[in-house]
């Protein structure tokens, strides 16, 4: 009876998870999707707690409470830190799977017969994926937080090394199957998994981290699937598979948005080749004050604002909203051009501007804006760099060549806000900044925009 009840809960949970994904893929139903997800997870946990095997609830309760206590503050991080948050979450997930796999192994090790070949392989995969996700996600978080150098780090014949380690891993799995009680093979496996996670991320540039996160997400899902095979739990399998495939397809979609091939992201060591090239020609910047910027904007009739990662860093979105209001009040037509990969997460800019109460239907997509760029009087580039880098159109050797960009260089004039002469995430120079009709306003995006606002309001601008 109980058994049926449990299975029923699991069936419901599975259905709800599917609906959650389905609904989340449309803005109108997205929030319902979250509800479905929560309901599904509740059903899953409730069903699990019903298992008669569970005799001792103390630790479970403690852990659940602890998790909630840690989880709530984690959900309050600033939106710029969302990518890191997700990465961290995946690390936790990987850890959990890895630990369960290890514990299960150690339990069954002493019970001959339990560790059938099938189970051993399943556990091996579970542990591999779990711990790989752990370290990989931690690395990704580090790169996004820029505590680890975001530049891709490569070493000679790395692929050789990787394959060697892979061979060792497979070897130890085989040995483990031969004699499951030999825990040292298992230990080797764990160690290798942890190493893999690091090696997987090292050669990938920080700019590709979101793609990597989506991929790690899919690994985490597959790890759950493996656990499901170990525990013969269909809920784990379905939920895990949903996750695995959706994460995978999402990372593919993101690659396409940057028009990079998948393999290129994983092994391309994107962003190192051209650090050399970057050193090359250095143009001269035309730098200006916030007042100059304000003046240009006042006299424009068509303005396009291109937000980028910089806006996120300096949390300038609210100021930008104010600027939008002031300009539109003066009858100036203002459009936002949001590049699909602006920022550090897909839809990053949308989220930020939405946070600033900018209705999402006044954000234009790149494809709509580019055609009438020539008619635009002023493009205001706020902390965006790679996504407005003409090299993507012109310079075949550039690593971002072919990536669709916002043609800020084709507008009548351009104002670019950034703090320094440093390159963007791809680590390459941007000719846009050296063009005659481009004015640079150096400084933190938030302060600069504030300055422009004050100047527009005719008060003392912070710009001089």
């Amino acid at each position, binding site marked *: 009876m109980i058994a049926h009840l449990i299975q029923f809960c699991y069936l419901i949970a599975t259905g709800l998870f599917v609906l959650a994904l389905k609904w989340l893929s449309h803005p109108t139903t997205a929030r319902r999707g979250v509800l479905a997800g929560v309901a599904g997870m509740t059903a899953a946990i409730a069903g699990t707690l019903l298992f008669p095997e569970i005799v001792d609830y103390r630790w479970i309760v403690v852990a659940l409470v602890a998790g909630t206590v840690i989880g709530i503050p984690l959900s309050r991080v600033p939106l710029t830190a969302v990518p890191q948050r997700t990465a961290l979450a995946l690390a936790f997930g990987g850890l959990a799977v890895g630990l369960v796999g290890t514990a299960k192994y150690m339990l069954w090790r002493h019970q001959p017969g339990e560790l059938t070949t099938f189970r051993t392989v399943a556990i091996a995969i579970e542990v591999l994926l779990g711990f790989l996700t752990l370290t990989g996600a931690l690395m990704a978080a580090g790169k996004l937080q820029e505590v680890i150098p975001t530049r891709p780090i490569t070493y000679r014949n790395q692929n050789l090394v990787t394959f060697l380690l892979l061979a060792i891993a497979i070897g130890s799995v085989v040995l483990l199957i031969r004699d499951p009680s030999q825990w040292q093979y298992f230990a080797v496996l764990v160690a290798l998994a942890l190493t893999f996670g690091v090696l997987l991320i090292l050669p990938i540039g920080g700019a590709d981290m979101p793609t990597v996160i989506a991929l790690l997400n899919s690994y985490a899902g597959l790890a*759950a699937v493996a656990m499901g095979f170990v525990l013969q739990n269909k809920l784990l399998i379905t939920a895990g598979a949903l996750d695995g495939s959706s994460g995978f397809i999402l990372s593919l979609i993101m690659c396409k948005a940057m028009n990079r091939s998948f393999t290129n992201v994983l092994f391309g060591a994107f962003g190192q080749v051209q650090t050399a090239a970057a050193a090359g020609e250095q143009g001269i910047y035309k730098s200006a004050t916030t007042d100059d910027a304000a003046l240009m904007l006042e006299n424009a009739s068509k303005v396009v604002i291109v937000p980028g990662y910089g806006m996120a860093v300096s949390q300038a979105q609210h100021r930008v909203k104010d600027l939008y209001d002031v300009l539109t009040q003066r009858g100036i037509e203002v459009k936002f051009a949001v590049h699909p990969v602006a920022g550090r997460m897909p839809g990053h800019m949308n989220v930020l501007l939405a946070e600033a109460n900018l209705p999402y239907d006044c954000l234009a997509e790149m494809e709509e804006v580019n055609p009438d760029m020539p008619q635009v009087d002023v493009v205001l580039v706020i902390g965006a760099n790679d996504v407005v880098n003409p090299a993507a159109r012109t310079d075949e050797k550039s690593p971002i060549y072919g990536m669709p960009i916002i043609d800020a260089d084709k507008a009548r004039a351009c104002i670019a806000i950034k703090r320094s002469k440093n390159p963007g995430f791809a680590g390459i120079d941007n000719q846009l900044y050296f063009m005659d009709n481009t004015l640079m306003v150096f400084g933190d995006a938030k302060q600069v925009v504030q300055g422009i606002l004050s100047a527009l309001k005719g008060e003392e601008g912070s710009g001089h």
Partner: protein
Amino acid sequence: MSGAEVWSMLFVFMLAGFIGFEVIRNVSRLLHTPLMSLTSAISAIAIVGSILLAGENHDTLTTTLAAIAVGASMTNIVSGFLITDRMLKMFKRREGPKA
């Protein structure tokens, strides 16, 4: 376990995989970030396994590991769902109500 059982698990696996592909295939760009945090939360379904392990009374080590696993997964679930909802709250149409 019985062979039939294994095969039905494989069936379930394949079908769920297909669904994942189909459902996400045409997700709007706007939602990539929320989608990632939601799926990260769902991937914490591993909590099911952790709870089972923590509940059946085994040696302290096992229980501790399992408890840690439960805690870690729960962290994901809570933060994942909360932050996703927080992000989605912000999306609104011009006519839409203010959050």
